[in-house]
């Protein structure tokens, strides 16, 4: 069980690292890139944490996550491209 929670720990720490780009990013597009990375890492850590808790239905949350954060990213990209 330790390996799973260690994996989740590293993934969350990487999320904090990606937040540096969210802070620094000179343009809004860079920030969206960081958001995308955080999104992927959250999904991965949720799948791993479902094993940690031994609650396998929790993976549903990860699917919904991957599906819906995408929509937010698309709205931001559409606005950024000046098309909204």
């Amino acid at each position: 069980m330790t390996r799973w929670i260690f994996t989740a720990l590293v993934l969350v720490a990487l999320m904090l690292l990606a937040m540096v780009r969210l802070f620094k990013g000179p343009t809004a597009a860079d920030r969206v890139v960081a958001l995308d990375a955080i999104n992927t890492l959250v999904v991965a850590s949720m799948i791993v944490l479902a094993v940690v808790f031994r609650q396998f239905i929790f993976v549903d949350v990860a699917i919904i996550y991957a599906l819906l954060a995408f929509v937010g990213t698309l709205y931001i990209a559409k606005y950024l491209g000046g098309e909204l």
Partner: protein
Amino acid sequence: MILSALIWISLAVGLTFNALGVIGILRFPDVYTRLHADTKATTFGSIFTSLAVVLYAAGEFFKDPEGQYETLALHTVLAVVVLAFTNATSAHAIARAAHKRGHKPAQAVCDRLEETAK
């Protein structure tokens, strides 16, 4: 035993690529190259961490078929498929938006899109 080793290897590979992706986001000079690191490396890393979960589910399933481990495996696979698809598409959307906004690719040797736009 072999399965356990495989799970360890998958986790290690997944974490390595996730870390490389995040470092790439921090290191690369412009939006497009950062998107390269983000899309490819983190998606690949997440596929491997999820593969570890699927392997774990398979191993437990052979020990105890009643434990509903097939649900875990199937939902994980579905999550990964959705993740890969959405990541690729949103990377395209971000890149296009950035280009429309006028961000030049840094250190570029050629830019065919801009030439046709003119």
